């Protein structure tokens, strides 16, 4: 008789709601939800706009275990107003990270020699379009507060992003995710800043046709992000695949985890700036132009090839590609 947790493991990550992801990513039966539906902390603003509310305001937060490690979990629900960040949603997200850091401080004060395998980590399953426009100020504030929390976590608590849900990770949350230590994605995940419809609206259909989903995924999807180096690990679309990748990351020494992000050192920033130079020099018309520069002779084949073949054969964009 398979438990609910066991059933979740084989589920499509893309199809799974926020709660399923939160429960399934940590060890079986270890997840405790905090500030969940039971507490009914709904948005104080949405009713005034005649908009439906949700008891968890579109985010599941809580604590679980992965091995001996306490893991502080945030999992966004894309089906509730696009997973957008409102006041309560934002506060929950900020506070779960804050709680992780406070736990670190408490644990290390009690035992300064606490082995790494028992030190807390934060995992965030992003599924969001960014700021909830109905609660714009609160949403924006939450973004700032979250970045602040990330800073406090530096040197202490690793923060890992998991992106593989329908809405993707866009808006301000795009740069929030980019500020975490590790990003794990599936090919169905998307990571970006401005959403495709907004790009089309601002720049015109000739510049970016939002209905051309293939284009959208070439620009912000998991495979492209993996080639670009914006995502560290690309996995199959199951909860267990994400969980396994997570486990592999969490056993690494924190010193190593801290080097895996896109930013955080002068060298990394310089690397990012080189990308800007590359773009200016090459004026790519499509992501495939960059894939070719990265050393992939047949960029057209990269989208459809099975994931395992892709991972074996694909060439990342490296520092040397960016040239001088």
């Amino acid at each position, binding site marked *: 008789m398979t438990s609910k947790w066991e059933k979740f493991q084989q589920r499509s990550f893309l199809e799974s709601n926020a709660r399923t992801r939160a429960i399934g990513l940590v060890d079986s039966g270890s997840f405790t939800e905090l500030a969940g539906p039971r507490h009914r902390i709904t948005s104080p603003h949405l009713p005034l706009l005649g908009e*439906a509310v*949700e008891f968890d305001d579109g985010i599941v937060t809580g604590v679980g275990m992965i091995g001996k490690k306490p893991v502080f979990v945030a999992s966004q629900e894309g*089906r509730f107003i696009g997973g957008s960040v409102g006041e309560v949603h934002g506060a929950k997200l900020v506070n779960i990270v804050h709680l992780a850091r406070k736990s670190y401080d408490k644990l290390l004060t009690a035992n300064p020699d606490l082995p790494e395998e028992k030190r807390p980590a934060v995992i965030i399953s992003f599924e969001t379009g960014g700021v909830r426009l109905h609660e714009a100020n609160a949403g924006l504030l939450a973004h700032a507060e979250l970045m602040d929390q990330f800073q406090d976590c530096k040197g202490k608590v690793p923060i890992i992003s998991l992106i593989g849900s329908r809405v993707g990770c866009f808006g301000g949350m795009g740069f929030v995710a980019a500020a975490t230590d590790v990003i794990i994605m599936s090919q169905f995940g998307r990571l970006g800043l401005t959403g495709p419809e907004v790009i089309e609206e601002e720049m015109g259909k000739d510049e970016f046709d939002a209905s051309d989903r293939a284009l959208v995924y070439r620009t912000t999807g998991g495979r492209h992000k993996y080639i670009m180096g914006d995502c560290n690990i690309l996995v199959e679309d199951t909860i267990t695949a994400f969980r396994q990748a997570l486990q592999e990351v969490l056993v690494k020494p924190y010193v190593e985890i801290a080097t895996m992000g896109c930013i955080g050192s002068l060298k990394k920033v310089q690397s990012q700036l080189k990308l800007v130079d590359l773009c200016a020099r090459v004026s790519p018309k499509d992501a495939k132009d960059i894939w070719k520069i990265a050393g992939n002779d047949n960029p057209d084949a990269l989208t459809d090839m099975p994931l395992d073949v892709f991972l074996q054969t694909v060439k990342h964009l490296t520092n040397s590609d960016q040239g001088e």
Partner: protein
Amino acid sequence: MSKQLHELIFELKAENPTDFPVDFSHFGVVGSGDMEVIIEQKALAGAVRIKIVSPVTGYDEVWRRVLERFVNETGIANASLEINDNNATPVVVSLRLRQALSEIV
């Protein structure tokens, strides 16, 4: 001229009541055309109290019929239900309520 969410409250009693077995349960996501529900034990002399919060109004009778059928078919008793609705059709409501109960098994 501010809007609001509409509240509907029903108190129903099943023909063959069975006490709701757990303290607290929750099911669903408030997506467009969908709903979530909290079901908690509550001593109501065999009755069920259901509160619906919805941006849409004018379907009181439809809600009543859907909920009456649900209560009679399942026999749910001594329970309090709180629903956050987002324009779910009766099909979806019936489905989610039943799914909420089967999660408890």
